[in-house]
């Protein structure tokens, strides 16, 4: 089980290898990448920033709670910070388990929880030269605990 916030390009194959083992009949690899459009605007890159210490703690908590929910799962996750170009990976989640159902579910839980509560923000850079912070799901503000 491992989680990290890093400032370098992500190596999906390395994370997959990290959780793979002969006891695991299934390994799921999720790679989140920078998309070229958002809300109809041409995106040229995304800049990720974080409240780093808390982000590391939240990501670690997510991995620990997911592992407790799916006994036998092994998870490795890294989230990258900095300015990323199109197609570059911002997050890689590798989840392995003796059976595929739990591997898929664990992977899904980690990405959804990460989007919900890890204090990381992104500023999109657009083709017209402008930049904007993305407020996913902004609106009524509730603490993630209250939502859980």
């Amino acid at each position, binding site marked *: 089980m491992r989680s990290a916030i890093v400032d370098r390009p992500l190596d999906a194959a390395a994370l997959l290898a990290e959780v793979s083992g002969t006891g695991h009949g299934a390994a799921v690899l999720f790679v*989140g990448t920078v998309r070229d459009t958002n809300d109809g605007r041409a995106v040229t890159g995304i800049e*990720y*920033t*974080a*409240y780093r*210490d*808390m*982000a590391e*703690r939240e990501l670690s908590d997510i991995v620990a709670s997911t592992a407790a929910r799916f006994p036998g799962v092994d998870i490795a996750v890294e*989230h990258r910070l900095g300015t990323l170009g199109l197609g570059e990976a*911002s*997050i890689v989640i590798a989840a392995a388990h003796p059976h595929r159902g739990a591997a898929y579910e664990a992977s899904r839980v980690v*990405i959804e929880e*990460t*989007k*919900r*509560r*890890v*204090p*990381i*923000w*992104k*500023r999109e850079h657009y083709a017209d030269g402008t930049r904007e*912070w*993305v*407020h*996913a*799901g*902004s609106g009524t*503000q*509730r*603490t*993630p*605990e*209250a939502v859980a």
Partner: protein
Amino acid sequence: MPLRALLFASYADAVGAPEVEVDLPDGSTVREVVDAIRSRHGADRLPPAPLVAVNQRYASAETRVSARDEVAIIPPVAGG
């Protein structure tokens, strides 16, 4: 007590600084801290009830803080 609150991303941009200091009675609540911050010049652009973390944990509006606590105002997160 003097209390510093960390600001990030769009909130840091809105206020024009990565942190802001306010003076409040010891044991003030998160809600009172936010109100004090928003009463400062430029910080009225923050929402009235933002997410707040105390010592790197999400806190409720009623959580009490002391000068030793690390308080952070958290914009809507957008990781992944």
